[in-house]
């Protein structure tokens, strides 16, 4: 594994994206992506936890005995999640309500434990922070694209309830394409999330395939 920020960026954002390549953390990805603001809120919370847990684990990793590493990592992650949860409950109560159980479930998000195990425990602090930042951003991007698409198709709006995340200043940020907020309801329901995620994965594979030479494309299809 090369330790340059550039490879980390390519890995986290595209080549080894946690959401559409590793397919980790699908439960929150599918469950709270029903609106752009929910997706952005959960994505940012996950990003924050991932960066903090990666740095904590990079600092303490060498003192943690191998057989105890899982419980200790989970404890770190759980305390960070508790901090995020309390902050949200204090300052963004509506968002806290609409994310519900999935905020607490960030603890069990495999992206975070996966990065702790696979990268942070074995690498120096600054690279662990960069890795957390980039993997978290990769996850956040997919979450936001999925949330935006589902909100747009499902109820014909974008940034509905933006004040839940950005505060009172964002009261009129919402963009509404139809007046009664009715749309293709399936996109808001779980099957719609699965279908759209499948489409995103297919699109990414298609873009990857197109970069290969035509001969390779023919042999692989």
């Amino acid at each position, binding site marked *: 594994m090369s330790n340059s920020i550039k490879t980390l960026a390519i890995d986290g954002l595209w080549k080894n994206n946690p959401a559409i390549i590793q397919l980790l953390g699908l439960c929150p990805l599918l469950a709270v992506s029903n609106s752009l603001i929910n997706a952005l809120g959960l994505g940012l919370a996950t990003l924050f936890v991932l960066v903090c847990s990666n740095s904590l684990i990079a600092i303490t990793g060498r003192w943690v005995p191998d057989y105890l590493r899982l419980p200790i990592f989970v404890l770190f992650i759980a305390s960070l999640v508790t901090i995020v949860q309390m902050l949200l409950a204090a300052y963004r109560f509506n968002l806290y309500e609409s994310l519900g159980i999935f905020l607490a479930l960030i603890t069990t998000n495999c992206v975070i434990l996966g990065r702790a195990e696979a990268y942070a425990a074995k690498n120096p602090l600054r690279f662990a922070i960069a890795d957390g930042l980039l993997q978290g951003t990769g996850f956040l991007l997919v979450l936001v694209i999925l949330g935006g698409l589902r909100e747009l198709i499902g109820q014909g709006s974008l940034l509905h309830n933006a004040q839940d995340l950005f505060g009172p200043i964002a009261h009129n940020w919402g963009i509404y394409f139809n007046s009664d907020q009715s749309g*293709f*309801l*399936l996109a808001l*329901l779980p099957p719609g999330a699965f*279908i759209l995620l499948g489409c995103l994965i297919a699109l990414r594979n298609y873009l990857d395939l197109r970069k290969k030479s035509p001969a390779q494309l023919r042999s692989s*299809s």
Partner: protein
Amino acid sequence: MFKVYLSALPALVLFTLWQGLPFLLHLAIASISGLAFEAIVLKLRNKPVLPALQDGSVLLTAMLLVVCMPASMPWWLSIIGMFFAVVIAKQLFGGLGHNIFNPAMVGYAVLLISFPQYLTQWQVADAVTSATPLDLRQMGEYTASITWQPFQAILWINIAWALGGIFLIWQKLIDWRIPVSMLLAVVISSLLLQFFAANSLPLFWQLGFGATIVGAFYIATDPVTASTTHTGRWIYGSLIGVLMISIRQFSAYPDGLAFAIILANLCVPLIDNITSKR
């Protein structure tokens, strides 16, 4: 395939008389958009286009989708339904012969979940829309005093479907086991419900309304998605019947045929595996 259309013709004519010209318009839109989707996806998959368009399976899907929906719905609904039927349910799973789920029912289920407001109002007489008895039960407005007179068109259409289905069985185009087991299951489970559950519909309504008859003869018998063994077909048909009546009785949806068929389709690999002789 020609004989299948021939057998459906009386029911389609009655449907047109009942619902008027918009029904034919929906049928045309659904057929053309379905063929277009099929052609586009086959082209993308580098597969021959013409043979697949000529086998008539898309047209059958379009017909089965449109007869499930009231003609008063907006015209673009059938395009969305056909997109999900042909692209998602059929071609993404590998095309005709590889699809796990019945395409027409997937399209219908998507529309029913997404646009319930358009799919529950049927035009019963000139310029009068009403919910069918199945919908009325769902809204808690069903009473024993409701007679079948306002809905007699539905009855006639279902009789036409049944006659068409019997013709298909006589021509050995469909297996008699599936419709017989499904209708038996419908009769038994609705009689049981009548004895033991409050607010249940009499047997006559369960058989004569909703998609019971067309489902038993035309939709459940789809050779691709139905079970392939003799015993398996008995199980498959009864499963659809019981599930459909249960969904009508206990869920928030007036008719359960689409969901029952999709759920039974899911069980088909298991049923086939258990009942096939090794």
